[in-house]
């Protein structure tokens, strides 16, 4: 079977619109993130308590909120897991989990199961934040070093911009959907960066191969041809990886939910950016300089 047969799509002609499309998402996302401030981050990055409970009779977020509100602890969130009205995650301010658990036990007695508790102090959250950022930066630098070794300067810069594009888009989507940034998200972002590069590399490799075959400077045609030739692979690979992250998203449970969400958005936009951002930028750059591309 072949899904994609000898396509001849002019991907890069309307690239200005794609730039604008991406910029709009990113600007809106960054605006929302700035607006939300600390609320963007999970407990491991800002400190706080988190309880994971299961109640043996059907209840809802509202009634749980009411019970917890009876002891004054400041702002907290209750999130339902699944649809049975039995599993909940409660995010609480620093060091209030013991009191909340006591209160819940008073209310539900034996009917409540405390499945998990995390308590993160501010000093630990600073450490976790620093560690995660360090891992993220080292990973990113590793990828960038690899890119500069592997490619001509302009290609490397374009691929780098594509990486940042993907990361910012994913962060924006997290903000749009009200999901929190935590250690898992940074791990996902790094995975996306790796994926984005590898997708870009395959297209750039083909562009290079085709450039060597011809003496033409009609870059738009050569680039479009290369993208079309690799399109089948591009789509197949994003499909197989998406199959997997979609099943993780739907069946993997709460812990992996945001992680899988990032990967879904990231893989889609990582594929998109290889064509509409990375390749597009190289074309615009080549058009500006009169010298023929040396490879």
């Amino acid at each position, binding site marked *: 079977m072949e899904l994609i047969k000898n396509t001849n799509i002019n991907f890069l002609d309307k690239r200005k619109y794609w730039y604008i499309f991406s910029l709009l998402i990113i600007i809106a996302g960054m605006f929302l993130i700035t607006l939300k401030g600390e609320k963007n981050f999970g407990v491991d990055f800002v400190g706080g308590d988190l309880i994971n409970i299961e109640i043996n009779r059907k209840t809802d977020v509202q009634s749980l909120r009411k019970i917890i509100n009876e002891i004054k602890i400041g702002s907290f969130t209750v999130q339902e897991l699944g649809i049975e009205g039995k599993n909940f995650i409660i995010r609480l301010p620093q060091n209030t989990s013991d009191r909340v658990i006591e209160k819940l036990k008073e209310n539900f007695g034996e009917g409540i199961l405390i499945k998990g508790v995390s*308590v993160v102090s501010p000093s630990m959250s600073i450490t976790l934040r620093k560690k995660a950022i360090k891992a993220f930066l080292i990973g990113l630098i590793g990828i960038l070093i690899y890119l500069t070794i592997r490619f001509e300067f302009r290609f490397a810069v374009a691929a780098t911009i594509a990486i940042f594009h993907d990361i910012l888009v994913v962060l924006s989507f997290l903000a749009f959907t009200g999901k929190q940034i935590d250690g898992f998200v940074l791990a996902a972002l790094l*995975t996306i960066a790796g994926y984005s590069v*590898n997708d870009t*590399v*395959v297209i750039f490799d083909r562009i290079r191969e085709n450039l060597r075959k011809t003496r033409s400077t009609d870059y738009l045609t050569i680039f479009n041809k290369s993208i079309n030739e690799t399109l089948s692979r591009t789509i197949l690979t994003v499909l197989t*990886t998406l199959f*997997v992250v*979609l099943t993780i998203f739907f069946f993997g449970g709460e812990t992996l939910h945001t992680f899988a969400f990032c990967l879904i958005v990231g893989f889609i936009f990582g594929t998109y950016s290889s064509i509409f951002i990375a390749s597009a930028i190289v074309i615009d750059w080549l058009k500006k300089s009169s010298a023929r591309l040396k490879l």
Partner: protein
Amino acid sequence: MKTQFYFKFGIIISIIGVCFYLFYPPEKKLKKGLDLQGGVHIVLEIVKEENIDKKNLSDLADRVLEIIRNRIDALGVTEPIIQKEGMDRIIVDLPGVKDPQKAIDIIGKTALLEFKLVEEDEKLYKQALEGKIPEGYELLYLKEKDERGIYRETYPLLVKKEPELTGKYIVDAYMGYDATGFPDVNLVLNDEGSKIFEEVTGKNIGKRLAIVLDGVVKSAPQIKERIPGGKAVITGKFTKDEAVELAIVLRSGALPAKLNIIYREVIGPTLGKEYIQRGFKASLYGAIIVVIFMVFYYLHFGLLADFALALNILILLGIMAGIKGVLTLPGIAGIALTCGMAVDANVLIFERIREELKSGKSPKASIDAGYHRAWTAIIDSNITTIIVGIVLFIFGEGPIKGFGLTLTIGIIANLFTAVYVTKTIVDWIVINRKIERIRI
């Protein structure tokens, strides 16, 4: 030619055998992380005194670590992890611990035991209650249990600040029962401690001796006679659990510094099981969809890619078991992701073969060219993922480490299975069967 194939198949089959042996049965051979097993993960930070230098702080942490290790050993947790992080932090992982709160209490308790003489002078005591505490004395509250078993402060005692004796002379501590049937804690002192205790009791007959634990008076019995032999008892209407706990912490000695729990994660056993089920289910579904899709799309070659995928996972699990790598929930996600990404190498190769066939080459030549020309792209795409995997393994925290680990091993194994193994099989079929047309 033939012997070359035998050799190649020999390698592949022995690798399958070794990996299978390494990881089977998986419940026993694969090491589960704390998140999958349930348990407690805590990070303790030493409360720093002012102007303590780095060297002393680090030594202090070492001593704290040793004491915590003794306490955990007494709890009987299997395979605990206790390690120092930086200068002033101690990480404790207790997999599968039944009563997390109890474990946390035992680990974090300072357990500074002091014997302090009570000042019996009424006048001084009254003055102290009015706020005029004499030099060298302090007011400490006696905490006792009420009818409901909750500790309440009862009345204050005026005691000498300087203790007569501390817990550092204790050589053993164990639970016993007092005359009324309540559990108590029996102490055995060393020679030096025995001598001091004998002297103190001998000199202060009639006075009360307060037994102070972490700044709270547990009991203040009256000294009736000189006590030789170095034996003392702490009473206080303990429950059996409390007495056992207290005995453990006293036996292991007092912590030389106060500790703050700055991170605490308790994962109940049900949650761990749920994680395993969920993670396994998600990975399985993902893998099945990929497997079906590949056959659907590439026919026989799809089967080949699926075989490579199965082998890839087998090798991944084998290596995980072999190096005793820890499997975490994100680690399972990493295995699933490997399934999705692993077929990429075969997709690259197969697409290339299709192109070569279209350009009119013979099957054999197309296959060779396909593998050859896809190789650089495969290396390229795997290298970035390997970089990410290694970084997450080295610098990632807790469960994320597991993700980095499975991703790295999975992708490295992928180079072998998707390229070497499939090429060997394809070559063998094409040459042996003298195939002149292929469908892909």
